[in-house]
């Protein structure tokens, strides 16, 4: 058994540090292969110690699971992931499961989209009570996520359109209803960060510079529009804070898009 063959056997072994007897015999007589085996085992043993950025999302996902509507209504029995060990069914049941899988996956997508939007909300504890305006806006975001592929330019564009509508229509319509305006503002702040900018990050590899620049320009216009409203001498005092928050969010969103654009240029 030559060294090249032994090393290939080690590469293919489930546990290179515990090779079969014939390989062990060669290793006992070959210092070079022993050293090679040591390096292979060491490299693999070190992999779990590679740096990983800390996760910031775990606690929010746990909260979401604890507070989400019961998904049991969406789940269907019989749909399975993968084959073999997890699926102990007859051929007929497997056929039924295939049909049920499409329903289960579509339902899971709806649950996921709702959960994704819920995570974008401000996270005080306890949660603020539901408001018709916020509910309506949530549903619209869910419709966009349902209708567009994740990480797509299409989703980014529709989110941008939605954000523009919030600023240029919903805010104006809510000027005489302070509570409604507060709901729109709170929604907009969370939406920009957790939906729009997040979708831009995900779609960034295949967004053009022109698209990113156009998006930054839209957020700039949104900030300008909100600043104009803040300069209105007839502005109700109680409207100042939500509009300021929206303007700050638009500015932050624009800056984040510009950062993504800069990274593309680098």
């Amino acid at each position, binding site marked *: 058994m030559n060294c090249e063959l032994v090393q290939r056997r080690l590469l293919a072994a*489930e546990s290179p540090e515990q090779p079969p007897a014939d390989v062990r015999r060669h290793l006992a007589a070959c210092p070079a292969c022993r050293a090679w085996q040591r390096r292979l085992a060491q490299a693999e043993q070190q992999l779990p*110690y590679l740096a990983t950025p800390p*996760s910031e999302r775990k606690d929010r996902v746990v909260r979401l699971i604890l507070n989400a509507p019961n998904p049991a209504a969406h*789940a269907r*029995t019989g749909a399975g992931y993968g084959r073999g060990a*997890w699926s102990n069914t007859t051929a007929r049941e497997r056929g039924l499961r295939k049909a049920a899988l499409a329903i289960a996956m579509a339902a899971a997508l709806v649950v996921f989209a709702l959960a*994704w939007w819920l995570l974008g909300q401000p996270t005080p504890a306890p949660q603020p009570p539901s408001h018709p305006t916020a509910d309506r806006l949530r549903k619209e975001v869910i419709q966009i996520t349902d209708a567009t592929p994740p990480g797509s330019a299409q989703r980014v564009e529709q989110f941008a359109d939605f954000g523009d509508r919030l600023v240029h229509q919903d805010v104006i319509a809510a000027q005489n209803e302070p509570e409604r305006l507060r709901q729109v503002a709170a929604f907009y702040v969370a939406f920009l960060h957790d939906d729009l900018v997040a979708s831009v990050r995900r779609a960034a590899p295949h967004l053009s510079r022109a698209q990113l620049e156009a998006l930054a320009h839209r957020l700039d216009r949104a900030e300008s529009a909100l600043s104009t409203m803040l300069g209105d001498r007839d502005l109700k005092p109680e409207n100042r804070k939500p509009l300021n928050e929206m303007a700050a969010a638009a500015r932050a969103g624009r800056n984040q898009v510009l950062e993504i654009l800069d*990274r593309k240029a680098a």
Partner: protein
Amino acid sequence: MASSTPNRDRHPDEAALIDRARRGDRPAFAALVEHYWDRLHRWLYHLARDRHAAEDLAQETCLKAFAGLRTFTPGTNFAGWLFRIAHNNFANHCRSLRRGEALPDDLAADGEGPEEQAQANEALAELGRALRRVPPEFRAALLLRAEEGMSFREIADVLGLTEETARWRVFKARQRLMNLLAPRLGQEKP
């Protein structure tokens, strides 16, 4: 920078938690998420090489698992089932990036991320750089073996492969890794 010691253990009450979660007990499933999140996130990060995508994919995995928990067969490998969902999500993520072939190893245009830069141990940093240059389909298999301690059979179930193909992917990943590390180690290539 987070660097964890490997934890391949099942939750001590996993079977009971799964049973309760399947009957709608949300805190039970939340406990499973707490147990598996870091491992999922870590694996997805080393596949996607993008911290935001890793967070998104880990979240998507947990929520899909939550919604589809009734499809899991009690008594079988829950970790494998979960990682299978994660892999499917990663595959969808790759498709959404409109790449028809294996992703380039480094998705970050600016090379090393802050995590690698902060890696105190140069040998580990070099290992990380080498791992990034292993194609993702090989990397996925190798990390399941090295970090999760999965057998070739289990890796095959997660990645939707035959056992032989799973073995071959681990082989190729190790071979590539050793070749990349060879100039520093002065070793011969098999």
